[in-house]
């Protein structure tokens, strides 16, 4: 039996940096043995000192954890998909260490959070699109809050012009991949968390695979093609999307829950290229990033904790010049091609064609 095995980022160096490999066997155990033959050292990544599968490693067959099947004796069938996913909690209940109790005491003391809520935060997995102006404060506050797994997608390297607003990066980081700089900053602030770096542009080819590994997605993209792509992937995977955008002195933020409207309901079509300037073209007040990014981080924590009223069906508008916040209504559009009553989009499309502009990639850096 030959099956496809999804390999998470931390283990890809073992398999030639591939996300998916083929393996042969009748059971999950056979598959792991086969992978260890093909890629010596593979099994060692999955086991603890006693030789048993480490508790922070979950293995899924067709998205069902094998502990709920027949564990490593689970039999496979042609076309099955196996995924090896390292998790912070690993199926075992999260224990708050004394260090964590002290670190998170200002959370735990609030009845709306408590130790149960803090454990939810620690067990959560949040993906941040872009380690830039918005991604920086979002990632930093989520790391400080103890979000157990923070994924960051960015292909760019730190440029001097980023430092006016992107608080994950410092002068010494110029020239370094942003995901690397981000990871170092976040772990320096909170070594308890795991930072998963996706050093790649997010595209129609990898968006579903990357986003499926997380519970909540935060959008800090700098272009329309990526915004539509992330919106569509989140809807198709039923993931909450916390959206934010900034330009000059204006900011916008909202939260999309699957089935309650999406970015396409708000903006059915992108502007023609050049019609709406980017931050690189028009500028942005650096401190605006923290205002909108902090709102996005707040929304993520509320969703994890299941408290309060998320910014759903509401678009928050921030005008830094008048220092006014306003909220306008947004609705699910029954005619939306993605989430409407008769959808026509059932899978990811060509977003570069849709927007008439390329998704920025490493060979042609965009904005920043």
């Amino acid at each position, binding site marked *: 039996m030959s099956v496809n095995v999804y390999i998470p980022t931390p283990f890809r160096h073992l398999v030639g940096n591939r996300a998916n490999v083929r393996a042969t066997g009748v059971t999950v155990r056979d598959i792991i043995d086969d992978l260890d033959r093909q890629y010596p050292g593979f099994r060692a990544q999955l086991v603890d000192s006693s030789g048993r599968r480490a508790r922070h490693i979950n293995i899924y067959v067709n998205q069902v954890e094998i502990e709920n099947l027949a564990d490593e004796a689970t039999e496979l069938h042609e076309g099955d998909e196996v995924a090896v996913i390292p998790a912070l909690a690993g199926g075992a209940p999260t224990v708050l260490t004394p260090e964590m109790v002290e670190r998170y005491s200002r959370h735990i003391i609030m009845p709306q959070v408590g130790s149960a809520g803090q454990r939810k935060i620690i067990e959560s997995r949040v993906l941040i*699109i*872009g380690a*830039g*102006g*918005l*991604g920086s404060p979002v990632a930093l506050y989520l790391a400080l809050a103890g979000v157990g797994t923070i994924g960051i997608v960015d292909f760019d390297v730190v440029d001097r012009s*980023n430092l006016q607003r*992107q608080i994950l990066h410092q002068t010494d980081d110029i020239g370094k991949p942003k995901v690397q700089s981000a990871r170092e900053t976040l772990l320096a602030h909170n070594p308890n968390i795991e930072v998963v770096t996706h050093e790649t542009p997010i595209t129609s080819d990898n968006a579903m695979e990357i986003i499926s590994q997380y519970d909540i997605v935060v*959008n*800090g*993209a*700098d*272009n*329309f093609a990526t*915004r539509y792509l992330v919106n569509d992937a989140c809807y198709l995977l039923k993931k909450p999307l916390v959206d*934010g*955008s*900034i*330009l*000059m*002195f*204006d*900011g*916008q933020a909202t939260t999309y829950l699957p089935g309650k409207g999406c970015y396409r309901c*708000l*903006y*059915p*079509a*992108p*502007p023609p290229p050049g*019609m*709406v*300037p*980017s*931050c690189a073209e*028009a500028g*942005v007040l650096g401190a605006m990033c923290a205002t909108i990014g902090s709102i996005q981080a707040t929304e993520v924590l509320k969703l994890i904790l299941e408290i309060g009223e998320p910014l759903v069906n509401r678009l928050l*508008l921030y*005008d830094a*010049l*008048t220092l006014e916040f*306003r*909220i*306008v*209504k*947004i*609705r699910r559009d029954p005619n939306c091609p993605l989430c409407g009553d008769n959808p026509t989009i059932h899978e990811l499309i060509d977003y570069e064609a849709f927007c008439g502009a390329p998704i920025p990639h490493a060979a042609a850096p965009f*904005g*920043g």
Partner: protein
Amino acid sequence: MTSTATPTVSVRLTAVLQKLTGGQKTIEASGRTVAEVFDDIEARYPGFKAQVYGPDGKPHRFVNIYLNDEDIRYTGGIDTALKPGDVLDILPALAGGQ
């Protein structure tokens, strides 16, 4: 006289559109409908409609227009009737995050 009955409304603009109005964030304009208000603004700030309308003569689909915080797509579009003191917001999509 209909002209005396033509409502005057406030129109709020984002920073990108303010370059057309000499930096003014809020402008007063007159019209019985959203479309008439936009005609009035165009007369005083030429180029305004090119920012808001597409080649089909309808508002761009990346530009949202709110009348008292409600999207006019759900109230009758640019033919939505206005009354004195109404507030219109013109909000183009922003992509910036970096």
